[in-house]
């Protein structure tokens, strides 16, 4: 029952985001501010995790491919495809659900509890449009970019780790990287990123925007928002893979 109430209110919040801005310049400023907060702010963590994800997947793939019949180049192929298909979009977005999600939920939650949202409302500002919409829009713009960066860094990480541990030579890696490349995989990964970006920004925004109580509830709702957005993200991941990547 509470699920339906929540879901209805969530949809209403999304609907309420679309109204004529009171002042375009201020909305643009807020959007840019969020882009820098969400995009630039998560660049560091995305760089680090992508690099190591790539490195680990190179070493692990080599470990699993013990058969001498399989050429070394295959390792590069597998690293490329797993990074593009799954690691860069899904893993990065799960990490971002924690980083960005908790930030959005606690920022809005704090504004709600300290009546800053009421103060904006009373000035005649649609707070869903002014506070929530720029956050979701900024996520939709910057998170797919971060995922692309992550793809490149992940593959680079795999190359460096593979070469450094003597698994394969740089030439072998490059050769594998270029063979059997399916551009659709990148399209698929981007479709996933847009979906995930929407999930990990709108769900925490909902939890933060409608928080009730005090500081304790802000923490609780921000944790809850991260958990819920991670579950929804994995569910969406499964559904999208089933629908868009079905081999049958």
């Amino acid at each position: 029952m509470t699920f339906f109430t929540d879901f209805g209110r969530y949809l209403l919040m999304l609907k309420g985001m679309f109204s004529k801005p009171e002042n375009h310049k201020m909305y643009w400023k807020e959007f840019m501010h969020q882009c820098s907060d969400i995009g630039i702010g998560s660049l560091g963590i995305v760089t680090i995790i992508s690099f190591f994800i790539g490195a680990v997947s190179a070493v692990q793939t080599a470990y699993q491919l013990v058969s001498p019949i399989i050429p070394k180049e295959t390792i590069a192929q597998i690293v490329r495809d797993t990074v593009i298909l799954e690691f860069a979009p899904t893993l990065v977005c799960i990490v971002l659900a924690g980083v960005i999600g908790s930030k959005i939920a606690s920022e809005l939650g704090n504004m709600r509890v300290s009546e800053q949202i009421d103060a904006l409302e009373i000035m005649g500002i649609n707070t869903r449009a002014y506070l929530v919409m720029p956050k979701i829009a900024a996520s939709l713009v910057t998170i797919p970019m971060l995922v692309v960066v992550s793809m490149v860094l992940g593959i680079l990480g795999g190359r460096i780790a593979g070469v450094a541990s003597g698994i394969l030579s740089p030439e072998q890696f490059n050769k594998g990287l270029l063979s059997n490349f399916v551009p659709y995989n990148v399209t698929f990964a981007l479709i996933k990123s847009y979906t995930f970006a929407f999930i990990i920004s709108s769900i925490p925004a909902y939890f933060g925007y409608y928080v009730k109580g005090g500081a304790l509830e802000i923490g609780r709702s921000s944790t809850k928002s991260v958990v819920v957005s991670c579950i929804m993200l994995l569910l969406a991941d499964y559904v999208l893979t089933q629908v868009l990547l079905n081999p049958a």
Partner: protein
Amino acid sequence: MYFHNYIQQNTYTNNMIEFKNIFKQFDEKIVLNDVSHRMETGMCNLIIGTSGSGKTVLQKCLVGLIEPDKGEIDYDGNSFTDMSEEERKLLRQQIGMLFQGSALFDSMTVEQNVMFPLDMFSKLNGTEKLKRVNEVLERVNLVDANKKFPAEISGGMKKRVGIARAIVLNPKYLFCDEPNSGLDPQTSMVIDKLIYDITKEFNMTTVINTHDMNSVMEIGENILYMYMGQHEWSGNKQEIIFSKNERLNSFIFASEFLKDAKDMRMLEAKGKMDNDRNMDELLK
């Protein structure tokens, strides 16, 4: 006034806020129980009452931050209750509000806080906006704090920034929830006088929640006394001295000092009235 022009002027004639039979209940607890009153234009309308009597909830109902369960609210004869979201938004651009907890934007400096409504709704340029901001900050006795963040200033200073932000657009309706709690008596007086002056100067409808007796006696032109969510008494600051309402008397004249002061005023008035023979009229 140059900053008046960009605010949508309306054509209402009898400016006031009138509300009838307001009920509000949170779960089982009845917070407002059939409250009706009229807030007059060009006056400081006070809502007084003990802590928890429902002042804040009433004020928030009036501006629509809390939706009352029942009741009618009219702004200048236009039903606020029936207004659409958009219509309320337009009306709210003429409302200034000071929250009990100040509600400053904590990611912004004092100056940016006060400038925010101007940024959003005015067509002034940068220097004009800054000039206006400094003007209101000066009026609330707050200089040299422009570049500080809300976390770096005291509670009383926050209150004053909140007032500055509420009045920067010269609203038609001003709501203040305890504007001088946490202020020293002197600053308190300055704030009361400021609110009173701008109310007269711009013919605003000002609604103030307070339990500060100095304010009641200084600026109480139309006072609503709330008792456990109900309209218990209303009148002005002269009438309050002569009121025979037990609850009001024990609320207002709580200390021995104030009781004595009241008795003195009563005696004084009685002496005068005996001559005029219309004491009964005053002691209604």
